[in-house]
């Protein structure tokens, strides 16, 4: 990212102009994001192949999930992405204090997502839906892997916040990179939600 070496004095409006093509974030983060999308994509297809072998069992187990909880978590994560995107706009506009507030709010939505998911797991386990069921073994692995990515996303957001707090660093590019990873978490959740909760 060209902005990554900017000094505080250079923090100024830097967003894309009309018609200009530029890579959001940097190529290293895109390699990670595209790699994650590829491997998750393969795993989504593996799940569907297993589902096709025992449709009735999978469909019956999927109907035990609470779609309402999935919907709430989707709205929470989509809202976190909105806040993260606003952080990028703020940092491109040089409004670093607002960018920090947006990143904090993004992280708060991420924590809320984890709490709701923990409640959902607790509820499923207390009803006897464990990894002994083939569908639920996929469910726990998918949602667990997604939570690991979300925790990593929170850590990366924390790094961006730390950079913005330090007046000697303040690299706007790092906000763009961390937010890019966060949006990927949102993207993967949209697929997981449709796949596990809705395609039954």
């Amino acid at each position, binding site marked *: 990212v060209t902005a990554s070496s900017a000094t505080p004095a250079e923090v100024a*409006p830097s*967003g*894309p*102009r*009309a018609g*200009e*093509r*530029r*890579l*959001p974030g940097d190529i290293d983060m*895109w390699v990670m994001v*595209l790699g994650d*999308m*590829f491997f998750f*994509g393969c795993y*989504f*297809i593996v799940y*569907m*192949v297993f*589902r*096709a072998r025992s*449709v*009735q069992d999978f*469909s019956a187990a999927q109907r035990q999930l609470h*779609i*309402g909880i999935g*919907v709430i978590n*989707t*709205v929470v994560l*989509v*809202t976190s*992405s*909105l806040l*993260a*995107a*606003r952080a*990028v*706009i*703020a940092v*491109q*506009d040089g409004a670093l204090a607002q960018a920090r507030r947006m990143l904090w709010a993004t992280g708060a939505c991420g924590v809320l997502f984890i709490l709701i998911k923990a409640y959902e797991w607790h509820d499923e386990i207390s009803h006897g839906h464990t990894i002994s069921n083939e569908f639920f073994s996929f469910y726990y692995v998918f949602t667990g892997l997604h939570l690991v990515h979300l925790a990593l996303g929170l850590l990366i957001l924390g790094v961006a916040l730390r950079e913005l707090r330090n007046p000697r660093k303040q690299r706007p590019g790092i906000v763009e990179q961390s937010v*890019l990873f966060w*949006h*990927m978490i*949102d*993207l993967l959740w*949209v*697929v997981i*939600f*449709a*796949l596990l*909760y*809705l*395609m*039954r």
Partner: protein
Amino acid sequence: MPQAPAASTPRPRRAERVIWLAWAALVTATMLAWLLTSGDAQANTTAGNALVGAVVVLAAIKGRLIIRYFMEVRHAPRWLQRATDAWLAVLWIALFSIYLS
């Protein structure tokens, strides 16, 4: 979605409006998918397959909204636009084809 630059509108304000619209579309699509699947249509029936087809289309649209407007791929080089569109197309066509098989 507004994409053309308005000469009198500062970029941040226009960019903010675009992401708010994307967010509203994402929430609406999520609610719509929820409404579609709230019935009792059984798997592998014609009605069930049609509903799942609608869910797949909505999920693909949501994915593209996130990629284009949140990840800012709409301003990215063409190779990245093609790669992300290919990922969405291959993934959802494969998933729905296996679902129907």
